[in-house]
């Protein structure tokens, strides 16, 4: 039944066409907007209006992003930030509206953001976010520990001075009483301790000021580094997009590995679809979502590197947490230090009895007459932390910054996977903006596929084939001997004798002014080129007959062919 597979094929085609039609209808407005945006000169008022609206929207978005970047992330003042953002917005609007290459550059920046430069930008943002959060936190926790040191030192000193003060008061109160017994106690202190105390306060204050200076220095360093890095990466983004556009316009072979719809149509028109029958490994299907093996391998390698950076981020977050735990333990320890109350009580009673033996004889208790009675009580507290020195609480690490950094790094990891699609999108954008250049590139790709097919089929190359057209390369300088080549070709064509040909071959390759003979035989090189392509074939006699019609040349090459199998 020959009709059955045909019917199934038609059914599949019909379903595909209907689905494609529905999808096309849904995407029609987007396609129209993109056509208007990528047109160098608008063809109608509708396109002009669409183009202006799109450029205005993009300029407003760019201005908003610049303002947010300056004011929120880099902490510039709002007034200058708004002014700079407005000026940038106006410049972007004028550039996008009037200069199509700038518009293409802007469009190219979007997929380039998903590639290496964008990934570096994301990683720099995550690193800066983490540094801004972690470094001050660690320093604050270390400062809290230092504050504990200061408070404990102050407290112990205050307690000691308080003790000496209390003892001094007690000794002064006991003075006149002591004199009664002809013995005395003197409590002498070198100083009242105020100058000493002020000195100590000044020292600890100086240490804390040094520490806060260090914290401010670290914060300023992190902010400045982020500013410089962000500026450099934005500049790198634009430079890379510009470089891609330049190479696209000047090098036909640059990034010319996509089997686009235009190529397919061209091959169909030329009835050369057999060139894609086994597609080469380097040719990428632009319309397909499947990645090639090379793309997958490069993605895996880059993901490995990003995993290392993720480990470093985890180490930084762990360091912050460790510093917090240490500071918290220190502060809790200081807060738990007990206040030891001290109470000194002195009771001294003196009584006398006159003629004590008389009541003793009558078995009676002798009445005592009180002579002296002293009751003193002194109370104070042994406090180990100063009341005037508040303990700084340990600063808990905020979860927002590490989560933001981790999210940015995961986003960078996703850009690794999206990089292959970004490359294809970049090529599609450039093709939309410069259709003439894309047509030239498609012709070049067609020629390349034709050369590959001919090489594989083993067919001879006709002299007028387009694949023989020389292809330019960027930064390609013509060699100095090209003039000699042209002169030699001219001389050779003018004479046209076999003896002259062989005499040229006999020249030595080491002569300085004369170019080596292997490069003067341009025509011979061209004719000899297929020999290497068919080195493993046995059709050498056919080639010789085709290219060397003269009898003596045929005889000589025939001898060489006979020697080769042996």
């Amino acid at each position, binding site marked *: 039944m020959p009709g059955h597979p045909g019917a199934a094929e038609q059914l599949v085609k019909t379903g595909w066409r209907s689905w494609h039609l529905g999808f096309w209808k849904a995407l029609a407005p987007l396609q129209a907007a993109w056509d208007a945006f990528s047109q160098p000169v608008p063809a109608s008022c509708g396109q002009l209006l669409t183009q202006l609206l799109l450029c205005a929207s993009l300029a407003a978005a760019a201005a908003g992003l610049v303002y947010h970047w300056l004011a929120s992330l880099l902490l510039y003042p709002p007034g200058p930030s708004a002014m700079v953002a407005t000026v940038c917005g106006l410049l972007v609007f004028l550039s996008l509206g009037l200069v199509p290459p700038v518009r293409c550059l802007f469009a190219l920046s979007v997929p380039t953001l998903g590639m290496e430069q964008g990934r570096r930008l994301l990683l720099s943002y995550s690193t800066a976010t983490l540094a801004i959060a972690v470094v001050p936190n660690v320093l604050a926790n270390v400062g809290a520990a230092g504050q504990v040191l200061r408070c404990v030192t102050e407290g112990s000193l205050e307690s000691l001075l308080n*003790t000496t003060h209390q003892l001094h008061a007690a000794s002064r109160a006991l003075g006149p009483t002591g004199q009664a017994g002809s013995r005395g106690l003197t409590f002498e202190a070198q100083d009242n301790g105020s100058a000493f105390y002020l000195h100590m306060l000044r020292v600890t204050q100086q240490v804390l000021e040094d*520490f806060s200076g260090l914290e401010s220095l670290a914060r300023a360093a992190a902010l400045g580094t982020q500013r410089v890095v962000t500026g450099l990466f934005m500049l790198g983004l634009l430079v890379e997009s510009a470089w891609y556009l330049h190479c696209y316009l000047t090098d036909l072979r640059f990034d010319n590995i996509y089997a686009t719809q235009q190529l397919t149509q061209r091959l169909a028109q030329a009835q050369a679809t057999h060139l894609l029958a086994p597609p080469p490994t380097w040719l990428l299907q632009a319309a397909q979502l499947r990645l090639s093996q090379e793309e997958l391998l490069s993605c895996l390698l880059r993901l490995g590197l990003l995993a290392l950076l993720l480990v470093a981020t985890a180490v930084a977050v762990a360091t912050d947490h460790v510093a917090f735990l240490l500071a918290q333990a220190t502060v809790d320890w200081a807060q738990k230090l007990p206040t030891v109350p001290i109470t000194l009580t002195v009771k001294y009673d003196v009584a*006398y009895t006159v003629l004590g033996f008389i009541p003793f004889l009558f078995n009676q208790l002798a009445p005592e007459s009180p002579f002296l009675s002293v009751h003193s009580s002194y109370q104070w507290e042994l406090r180990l932390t100063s009341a005037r020195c508040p303990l700084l609480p340990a600063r808990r690490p905020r979860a927002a910054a590490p989560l933001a950094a981790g999210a940015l790094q995961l986003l960078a990891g996703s850009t690794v996977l999206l990089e292959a699609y970004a490359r294809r999108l970049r090529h599609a954008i450039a093709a939309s903006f410069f259709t003439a250049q894309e047509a030239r590139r498609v012709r070049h790709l067609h020629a390349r596929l034709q050369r590959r097919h001919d090489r594989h089929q083993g067919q001879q190359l006709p002299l007028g084939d387009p694949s023989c057209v020389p292809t330019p390369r960027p930064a390609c300088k013509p060699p100095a001997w090209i003039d000699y080549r042209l002169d030699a070709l001219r001389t050779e064509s003018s004479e046209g004798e076999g003896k002259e040909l062989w005499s040229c071959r006999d020249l030595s390759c080491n002569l300085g002014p004369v170019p080596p003979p292997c490069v003067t035989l341009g025509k011979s090189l061209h004719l000899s080129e297929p020999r290497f392509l068919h080195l493993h074939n046995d059709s050498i006699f056919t080639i010789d007959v085709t290219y060397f019609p003269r009898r003596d040349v045929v005889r000589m090459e025939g001898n060489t062919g006979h020697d080769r199998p042996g």
Partner: protein
Amino acid sequence: MGIWTSGTDIFLSLWEIYVSPRSPGWMDFIQHLGVCCLVALISVGLLSVAACWFLPSIIAAAASWIITCVLLCCSKHARCFILLVFLSCGLREGRNALIAAGTGIVILGHVENIFHNFKGLLDGMTCNLRAKSFSIHFPLLKKYIEAIQWIYGLATPLSVFDDLVSWNQTLAVSLFSPSHVLEAQLNDSKGEVLSVLYQMATTTEVLSSLGQKLLAFAGLSLVLLGTGLFMKRFLGPCGWKYENIYITRQFVQFDERERHQQRPCVLPLNKEERRKYVIIPTFWPTPKERKNLGLFFLPILIHLCIWVLFAAVDYLLYRLIFSVSKQFQSLPGFEVHLKLHGEKQGTQDIIHDSSFNISVFEPNCIPKPKFLLSETWVPLSVILLILVMLGLLSSILMQLKILVSASFYPSVERKRIQYLHAKLLKKRSKQPLGEVKRRLSLYLTKIHFWLPVLKMIRKKQMDMASADKS
């Protein structure tokens, strides 16, 4: 010169024996076996030295040696593989392994030192509290109580009527201070903080040692995988294209043979070709290799910045504690004297004098920070020096890799030579004229490229002019 020549001859002879036995005879096979055993011994020894935790015992080393001997004797791939592994240790994989080692040294040294200094700080604080409370406070109070007891204990007013008057005196001095609570609190708190610290330090040590082992294992795996990948690419179906930029001695001989047979030759290379292709042996890197050199050194610079960052954090903490200690040491002391004096017939003499010296921070308790400079940065400097040397030698090592592979697989080498020869000839015949590039490069100077609106305006003006003419 004679010694050098003889040494070279001996080495080449050993090399030929190692690559493959000359003939199936017994004598040649025994020589081959001897050379293979020597190479196996060297490789197992180096592996034992590099990863001493990997081969802890002599029995394991001996077993590895025997297995390696058998593999080297039986398989040519194994012989080539192990030499390429040695050469790969000097290339990118070796660089990564050394960077991992340096990172381990930094983490073990500086991070542990940071914890050590912080622990010293806490110890100093606890020691200071203990000294203030139990060495000055309570001894001072005790001495004061003794003084009071002395004053009133022996005070008896003298009287002429001793026989008629009798005295009775009572003295009670009490001090309430629950110092045992403070003692217990200090001990418990110190234990708590130090337990947290010891837990952190122990965890850091365990994690860093485990990370060190994992990094060493990962480095070794990277070297083996990289070498395997190189061999696969070199021997694969498109092996003649892989890294085929080296003009070897066999290539020169092939070109000479082509020249003698009256066929086109490619040597000597022109300037452009000389910049791209490398004539082995050469010691000056090509521009492409210089770029690769920059890529080789970039991770080294990044990791060097990370190491310096860790050292800076450690130095800052050291500097802080050192500054605090110095400031505390410079403060003067504060003396308190407790003097007891008695009065005898009008004169007053001091019987006893107790003095107490009060300082802000006890000298015995001042923390002494430690800064690791020689312990960490001497091995780091050695590692950096080795990395720089590896970077400078990377091109030579790559050439050696190609030469070793070519020695083991001459058929693949012949294919590569023929492919390179044909490629050079084809490229010369297809030299671009530069006209197309010149034409394409002119787009930057055209005003219509940047502002197509002007072109449209001029076109409209021309249309209007032609309309006016008609």
